[in-house]
């Protein structure tokens, strides 16, 4: 058989722009997420709450229903800061449970199977790798938090008029900002634990455990030391304080807003630090 000389030729096709290369990881991560029927079912169930709220808002403005119940608009549901805080609380809780199941699948398998060198021998930086994985979670959790929140805001604006929308514009920014910081925090916690606890199931249990444990321990610290220090170690308290401020609602959590912001940023920073220690192209196994 004749052997012909085959010289190297570089790829001459279209290259993915450098700035959007992290999105390749996001695309593949998202593709893998819905392989589990349980997760798909859980994700679909997350839309039940927004649907009920949507129907409630509609009925709140439906003249026939109001006449039937002998009430006026805003008496069935008062769509204000408290309403959206409750809505975000409910959806945020569901988002957290979803993250506990999805989050550990992001980095743990790559680390456990030694796949990181394969990623980093390509033109990916470590930051892009983390960003790509984070975006998959962000995209998914956005669909059940701020996206339906803003849709509800839009529906209410449509039914109540432009004046309501203008008066309550801070609610829309609150929905977006509150959701984004919550998503960022729970995603980073899940990813950091996923990187440090390579066993996927244990990482999921750790995500649940860390959040519940910190909440309980924070409450215990407050009780034993008769202080408010415990709130700073409770992610739920910190986000509630921040969101309450964004929505202009009173809260029993007696810490200042700026300190709650600092607390949240410190938690996120800690997670990034943990990720940067683990997400490397090589690993020394002792």
């Amino acid at each position: 058989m004749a052997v012909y000389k085959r010289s190297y030729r570089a790829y001459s096709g279209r290259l993915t722009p450098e700035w959007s290369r992290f999105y390749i990881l996001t695309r593949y991560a998202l593709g893998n997420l819905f392989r589990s029927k349980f997760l798909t079912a859980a994700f679909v169930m997350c839309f039940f709450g927004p649907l009920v709220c949507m129907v409630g808002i509609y009925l709140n403005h439906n003249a026939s229903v109001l006449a039937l119940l002998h009430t006026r608009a805003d008496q069935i549901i008062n769509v204000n800061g408290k309403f959206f805080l409750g809505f975000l609380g409910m959806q945020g809780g569901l988002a957290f449970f979803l993250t506990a199941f999805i989050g550990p699948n992001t980095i743990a398998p790559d680390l456990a199977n030694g796949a990181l060198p394969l990623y980093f021998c390509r033109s990916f930086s470590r930051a892009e790798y983390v960003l790509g994985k984070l975006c998959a979670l962000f995209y998914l959790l956005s669909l059940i938090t701020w996206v339906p929140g803003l849709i509800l805001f839009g529906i209410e604006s449509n039914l109540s008029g432009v004046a309501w929308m203008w008066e309550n514009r801070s609610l829309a920014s609150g929905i977006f900002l509150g959701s984004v910081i919550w998503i960022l925090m729970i995603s980073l916690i899940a990813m950091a634990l996923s990187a440090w606890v390579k066993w996927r199931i244990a990482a999921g249990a750790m995500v649940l455990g860390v959040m519940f444990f910190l909440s309980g321990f924070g409450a215990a610290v407050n009780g034993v030391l008769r202080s408010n220090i415990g709130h700073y170690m409770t992610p739920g308290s910190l986000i509630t304080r921040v969101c309450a401020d964004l929505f202009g609602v009173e809260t029993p959590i007696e810490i200042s807003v700026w300190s709650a912001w600092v607390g949240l940023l410190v938690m996120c920073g800690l997670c990034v630090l943990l990720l940067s220690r683990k997400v490397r192209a090589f690993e020394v196994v002792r």
Partner: protein
Amino acid sequence: MNPLWIVQTLAVLRLELRKTFFSKRGFWIYLLALAPVVLFTGHSLLEMKNHRVCDFGQDTNIFATVFQIFFIRLGVFFGCVGIFMNLFRGEVLDKSLHYYFLAPIRREVLLVGKFLAGLLATIVIFTSSAMLQFIGMYLHHGWNVVSDYLGSGNGLSHLIAYLGVTVLACIGYGSVFLASGVAFRNPLIPAGVILVWESINSFLPAILQKFSVIYYLKSLCPIQIDPHAGSFFSLLSINADPMPAYIAVPGLILLAVAVLVLASFQVRRMEINYATE
């Protein structure tokens, strides 16, 4: 009972105890158990440093609240998740369960041996923690006050009740999580469901409350928490219809036995396929 089964159970127990107590994977359970000890002792040391003494009654109530809300519901709960789910699922992940299954030993005996090992480990870890918490909490009150409370007051009965509740919590949660580890490939799902079920127990109808571990444990705690006293967490401890101890203790043990019997049926049919894990 066949005497061979006892010998085999003890052999499994010996092997598993070493793994449970000294495994690197279970290191965090010690941290979980020690966290409230550090909190109580730190508080006492701080008070002693400032030459202050807290109100004894208030401290007793705070201890009861932390014990019920934090220690049992979170500490012992997650500790049992870590230890008992690992007994079978951990072996599957380490690809070592087939060594047990190939040995001439009944699977039920293996299950009992593993359960006893997990139980012994959790009891030692968490009752020690409860004891140290008790000492840590009252450290700054001085020996005279504490000895009065233990001797003349109802301190000793309270301490025994707390330790007993801890042991029963280990039995109850241990059996449930061992069964989950046998039945589910991803034990996180049952753990999450049980966590939610136990958390909302106070708000469930009376008949449904009885299908949980925390209902019996709450009934056995020596001090009932005032739901208006503290934060939202105090609401979780509402126990409108407490069960008397002579029903609660055998009830919980029967629940554990029933769960273990179900798990033994499951483990008999268990097939190992490491490739799917």
